Structure formats: structure tokens, C-alpha cells
């Protein structure tokens, strides 16, 4: 078994109103110096060793993300 992390983020050119709302809230909470926030999704998958990188890419590209508006990164991490 291995842990695989998939991070999905809105593409840079896509408006991210949720991230903007977070960014606007920070000064109200007293946190200064944060100029921008982008909000995405973080998935942790426990996978058998038999699952190869190509399959993980298919999962990330074909299901966990929408390539029209999102980018993704797949990482294998120590479990």
C-alpha cells in the first residue's frame, strides 16, 4: 500500500471567488501581508502497489479534476 496525494487547483486564468473571499477575510481577522489566496482540493488515496502512475494520472485527469478549468499534481508519499 502507498499513499498518493492529488492536489487539484483552479487554473491560473480561472476566477476563484472562494479564494478571493478568503483573502478578503484575512485582514478583517488581523492577518496582514497575504496578497492572494487560491482555493483548491486535496485528495489522499491509499492505493495498492499494483496501481501504476499512468492509472493514477487517469484518475486525476479524468475524474478528480476537470481539465477544462483545473490543473492537478499527483505525488506518491510515504505512508
Amino acid at each position, binding site marked *: 500500500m502507498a499513499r498518493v496525494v492529488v492536489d487539484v487547483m483552479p487554473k491560473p486564468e*480561472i*476566477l476563484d*471567488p472562494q479564494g478571493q*473571499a478568503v483573502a478578503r477575510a484575512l485582514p478583517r481577522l488581523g492577518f496582514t501581508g497575504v496578497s492572494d489566496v487560491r482555493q483548491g482540493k486535496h485528495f489522499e488515496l491509499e492505493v495498492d502497489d499494483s496501481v501504476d502512475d499512468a492509472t493514477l494520472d487517469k484518475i486525476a485527469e479524468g*475524474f478528480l479534476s*476537470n481539465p*477544462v*478549468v483545473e490543473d492537478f499534481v499527483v505525488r506518491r508519499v510515504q505512508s
Partner: protein
Amino acid sequence: MRVGAVTFPGTLDDSDTLRAIAASGAEAVPLWHGDADLKQVDAVVLPGGFSYGDYLRAGAIARFAPVMGEVVDAARKGLPVLGICNGFQVLCEAGLLPGALLRNSELHFVCRDQWLKVENNTTPWTSRYDAGAEIIIPLKNQDGRFTASQSTVDELEGEGRVVFRYVGGNPNGSVNHIAGISDATGRIVGLMPHPEHAIDALTGPSDDGLGMFLSLLDQVVSA
């Protein structure tokens, strides 16, 4: 003429969609997400709601339902398909329509009667409207901001595939005020507002939405 409406877990507007289909004079056929069977319908409507709780992304899980395999195959062979709200999101996720629907730019759930301009009255779903007609039907969603790459938007605009456009203010920040689009054939149409909730002035802001269902009937009668 038999027109189906699909129920996914979390679909809300299947009853009103079936009612609108029947009101147009067609036979309304309930279709079930778990059945890979379109029951010989002549067209399919994917109604609004929150299929599978909108988990992951709106429409992302519904596209893998057994019935959707049949819908995609039939749509590619020319079956008219209409996606309303969550149904529009499902059609985009399934790749039958381009682009994606993202969170409304103001982050609010928008629920109001919305004026639309009919930009293309040559599709099977809009032939009853005059070109450029303005209609008012309900809009209710959280993820209604149509987004696509600039090249896709240029293609949609250039080919007359923007079917409906918001007028009187853009409720969600969609690109070019787009409310609804079609595929290259015009037979597959998706829109965020709800024609099925506006078929009778007693229960909706107008009966403007009925025109979409009557248009479909004309199409098949004349074919």
C-alpha cells in the same frame, strides 16, 4: 412522441420536468439513473437538482451513472438532449457540451426570475421562439458561472451556439453573459435557468418555458 427525464440521486426537478413534457403534449417517460435503458424515448431531458450531492464537482459523478452511457451514445447518434441547471453541468462533465460551470462569482445561491434573450431559435429546443425574443423563467443555482477557454468561447459565438444570454444583469459572472449553449449540431442544449418551472402563469413567472418543450414536439412532428 416519448420524452424521457432522468432521475439521479439528488435530482430535484424531475417531477416538474415530466409535468412540462406532458403539458407540451408528449408522453413523459421517467428514466432511472441506475438503468442503462432509455425506454425508446425520442429525446431526453436531464433535470436540475444536486445529483450525488454535487460531491467532487457539480455533475461529476452523475456522468458515470449507468443511464449516462446510453445518453452519451444516443446523443452522439443524434438524439435531442436538454440539460437544465444540474443537467447542463452533467452534459459539460460528460463532454457532450464544452466548458464548465463554476461557483457564482458573488458566491451566493441565486434564486430569482431571470430575463433571457433567445440568441438561437434554430435548435430543436428553441424553434418556437422568435429570434431575439426575451423570456423570463426562474434561475436557481450556486454553480452557474459558465466558463470556457477563449478559443471555445470564440467558437461558440462564431457558430451561433450561444442559445440563451442573460439580459438585465449577469447573475453569476458567466463569460459573455452566456446562460445556455448547444453542441455543433444544435440538438444538445444546456442552460442554467429552468424552463420547466415556467409553463403556467399560475405556478411560474410566465409560461415562456413551455416553448422549449413545444419546440421539440414540432421538430419531431415535422421530421
